[in-house]
């Protein structure tokens, strides 16, 4: 006997005619009065019919049921359904038809869009979704590679800038040494000339009128505006007629430059059309008299297209009285 229904249940016994008259009446009173009992009766009816269709009833039970079937179209329809359902299950149709059920059933749109049953059985939508994911991952990887390459490039630029700065520093040091040695040489020449004059004077010969030409030079490095110090002090020696300023640039990207020197009492000296040397240095010569003692600032502007001026570097120096 099938275990789909409980043969001992009162509803089943009622349906199979296994209750006494009094028991029947009591059960009928209960299902008339109680909806839950009635629902249990309806379910038991289906279960008894399933057992009938499966040939699981005894002869007596089967005859009892068939008497009722004969009188009721409704019960006959239930039997027909039970047979159809059993056939469908026996043929495995509910499983096979599950796919067609999915076709017929209006699945929610989000289930249809994201339906990816098995790896080996990807739907077109699932394949498209997988492709999108691959493309997205690819884009992320490419972006990562690009950022890494950008980072390396910036690192290289930074290293180059550091090298340029070191180079300029060494260049400045070299220039400073050269200027110092030139100054020493000039001073030596001046001293020799003085001695010569003295010796000539002692000989009674007229003193030559030719004045020795001397200059004071100062090399200014980028960033000196932010760190003024003694290295930017210039003492113009007596007799020096010229001051040479060597302005070292970090980069010499412009064809020509403008230099503005601002000094005490709002004095300004401007030079334009200056060129940078191959050592990225602008040298300008100024009359010593144009630079009285005091604090000076120097701005170097690059002359870009359409005569547009762009600040390149600034410097400070001080003329110290002797």
């Amino acid at each position, binding site marked *: 006997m099938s275990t*789909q229904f409980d043969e001992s249940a009162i509803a089943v016994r009622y349906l199979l005619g296994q209750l006494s008259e009094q028991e029947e009446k009591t059960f009928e009173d209960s299902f008339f009065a109680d909806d839950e009992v009635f629902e249990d009766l309806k379910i038991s009816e*289906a279960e008894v019919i399933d057992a009938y269709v499966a040939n699981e009833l005894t002869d007596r039970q089967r005859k009892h049921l068939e008497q009722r079937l004969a009188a009721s179209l409704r019960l006959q329809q239930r039997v027909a359904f039970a047979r159809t359902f059993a056939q469908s299950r026996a043929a495995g149709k509910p499983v096979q038809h599950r796919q067609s059920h999915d076709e017929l059933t209006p699945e929610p749109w989000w289930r249809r869009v994201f339906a990816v049953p098995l790896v080996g059985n990807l739907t077109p939508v699932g394949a498209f979704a997988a492709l999108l994911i691959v493309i997205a991952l690819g884009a992320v990887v490419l972006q990562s590679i690009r950022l890494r390459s950008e980072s390396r490039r910036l690192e290289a630029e930074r290293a180059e800038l550091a090298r340029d700065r070191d180079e300029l520093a060494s260049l400045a040091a070299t220039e400073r040494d050269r200027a110092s040695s030139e100054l020493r040489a000039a001073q030596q020449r001046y001293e020799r000339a003085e001695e010569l004059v003295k010796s000539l004077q002692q000989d009674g010969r007229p003193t030559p009128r030719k004045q020795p030409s001397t200059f004071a030079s100062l090399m200014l490095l980028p960033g000196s505006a932010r760190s003024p110090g003694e290295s930017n002090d210039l003492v113009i020696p007596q007799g020096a007629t010229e001051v040479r300023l060597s302005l070292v640039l970090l980069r010499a990207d412009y064809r020509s430059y403008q230099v503005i020197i601002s000094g005490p009492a709002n004095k300004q000296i401007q030079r334009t059309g200056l060129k940078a040397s191959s050592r990225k240095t602008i040298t300008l010569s100024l009359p010593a008299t144009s630079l009285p003692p005091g604090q000076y600032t120097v701005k170097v502007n690059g002359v870009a297209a359409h005569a547009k001026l762009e600040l390149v570097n600034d410097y400070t120096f001080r003329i110290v009285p002797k």
Partner: protein
Amino acid sequence: MKLSPQEDHRREDPARTRVTHSQWELTPEAFAKLLAAFSPNQEQAGQLYLSFHSKLVRFFEWKCCRDAEHLVDVTFNRVARKLCEGQPIENVCAFSRGVAEIVLKETWKQQDRLAPEQAIETIAYESVDDDDIREQRLKCLDECLAKQASENRALVLEYFSQEAKAKEIHDRMATRLGISLNALRIRVHRIRERVEECLELCMTAA
């Protein structure tokens, strides 16, 4: 509807009682009184009436009566008539139950009940050997199952999947859903009932 004096006289004769009662037609006013007897609330009255109607149909069917629907109408007609005649009825369900028992006895006396050997011959449902009908039923079953929510469909199919291991499967399902076996049984059969109704409509349309 009022009875004529002759008809009134025939009421005394039990043998003619059935004929007299069957002549009484349920008017809209009488039906309204019948409903009101179930509940003063119209909506509730309708639900109670339909529920009781369904119970009476099964009562007559399982008593092996032909045309159970007609017998239910007869029962309700008699109850409505009593209400129209002014008979006080405290509990219309219990009263109707009593009337149904009388109608049942009358019906048995009329020998509408079939002898067992006649039953098999008169089972009128279509033969399952008819391929076309069988295919149509299977097609309707598929369509009706497809109309159910997917979880309900899966529930029904799993519940009835293997008769031999039914108890094991039902226990597992009830545990998985966190409900009792009886609650599972009720849930599954309610879904089955919907599928059955759908299939009959589908077959009628086909």
